[in-house]
């Protein structure tokens, strides 16, 4: 199965995960400071910064895009409960 490496910058942990894993599934287990509320892409509590590797992330859904815009998020932000890692090396941090 294709793998991806996700590095949580704030706690210095890299996790090797199957491609297609949602960031929230990793972040809540690893104890990173990327937090969540609704888990359904509405509250933006889980917003985080993709430091590098945005090209390895799934496309934003219409809902994710709308919620990110409402929260004035920049191009480097994603919702952990929505975004999936598709492969390669991705580095994330809270924010």
């Amino acid at each position, binding site marked *: 199965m294709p793998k991806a490496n996700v590095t949580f910058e704030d706690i*210095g942990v890299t996790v*090797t995960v199957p491609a297609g894993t949602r960031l929230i599934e*990793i972040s809540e287990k*690893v*104890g990173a*400071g990327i937090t969540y509320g609704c888990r359904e892409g509405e509250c933006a509590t889980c917003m985080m910064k993709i430091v590098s590797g945005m090209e390895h992330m799934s496309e934003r859904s219409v809902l994710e895009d709308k919620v990110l815009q*409402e929260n004035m998020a920049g191009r480097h932000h994603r919702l952990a409960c929505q975004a999936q890692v598709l492969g390669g090396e991705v580095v994330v941090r809270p924010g």
Partner: protein
Amino acid sequence: MNVEAVELAQGVHWIGALDPDLREFDIILKTANGTTYNAYCVRGSEGVAVIDTVKENRAEDFFARLEQVAAYDEIKVIVLNHLEPDHTGALPELMRRAPNARLYISFKAQIMLKALLKSEELVYTTAKTGDTVSLGDRTLHFLHTPFLHWPDTQCTWLVESGILFSGDVFGCHFCDPRLFNDRVGDFRFSFEYYYQHIMRPFREHVLDALELIEPLDLRLIAPAHGPILRDAPGNYVRRYRQLAQPMLLNEAGDRAKTLLIFYLSSYGNTARMAQAVRDGAEEIDGVRASLFDLQGGEVAPFVDLVEEADGIAFGSPTINGDAVKPVWDLLSSLTMVNVREKLGAAFGSYGWSGEAVTMLEDRMRGLKLRVPVKGIRVKLIPTDEELTLCHAFGRELALHLTGQVTRKVITMEELNAQTSNSKEYLHA
């Protein structure tokens, strides 16, 4: 009770409602003096704006007052500074009666508005700082002040009259029909209490909002609850600035990270673990670790400490399959302050099942702390070897606090397999 609109300034009226007998608000607040739901009407040369409404059960008073100062077909603008039902209860009826009106909400309020009105086909305009709506000879300016105390909150500034419609900000639950701060009874306690319970968890957002509000040449603050602040309105802004400062002096200095270790122990097992954790953490330069026996403490002062701390660790034995009540009492009070992204950790002695540690870790994650180091459980009396592990655990927490952790690489399977008992916090 006479139901009359009250003029605040030329063409600006209070059209809210009094709720003198309310004794509890939103389950979480005591209201010895009842409350008011303040709504306002602003008349311009080219139309009328209504700013906020009232709780549904007080709608009758609101409409009666509104009708004294405006006809429904004159209403062009309805501003919602905050969507909580105490201010939007009369909204659906107002929209029905004033079909020419356009809704203005914070751009963060859109999803909430739909959930509130249970309708997808709403027409509204979203606002952020700098956006305005003209009423002809006067203009409403919007200030984006989110999370005071909901994501949707905003303030509205009537520049020509120097009036800030501030929503819940600068408000309090205090009902006195004399309305103005220079005429009502002593509401200082209510003002402070409201800040502590409603605004304090959002301190960073209060500071952001003050940056927008402080430069305004305020003549009057018209909040959504309690007295209208026309006498020395700037004093209330300054008071918010003070209240948003740290409650405690920063003794440790800016360079030291603080770790608070709270524990309880019936036979001293968890207490000995706690001491070892403290000793381990203290070995790292730039960390000040402190131990607190929850048995001998009150919750409130600990909440103040936690607000200023960088990390918190809880030591609890497992009693009847759970962590002990004083720990939960403190944890349940932490919603009063912002603990997001602080470091959290748990440890404890147990007899046979040992649920406490994982339950505490889950709770801390729920409170949005980061919990990067797996907790330690020790069966009954800690051995020297186990105390060494506790010591290393403390060191590890301190390294996290000071940003000195060595990078770790693990797989998802390993992550899933980790248990509280594992020793994986020890870097090989």
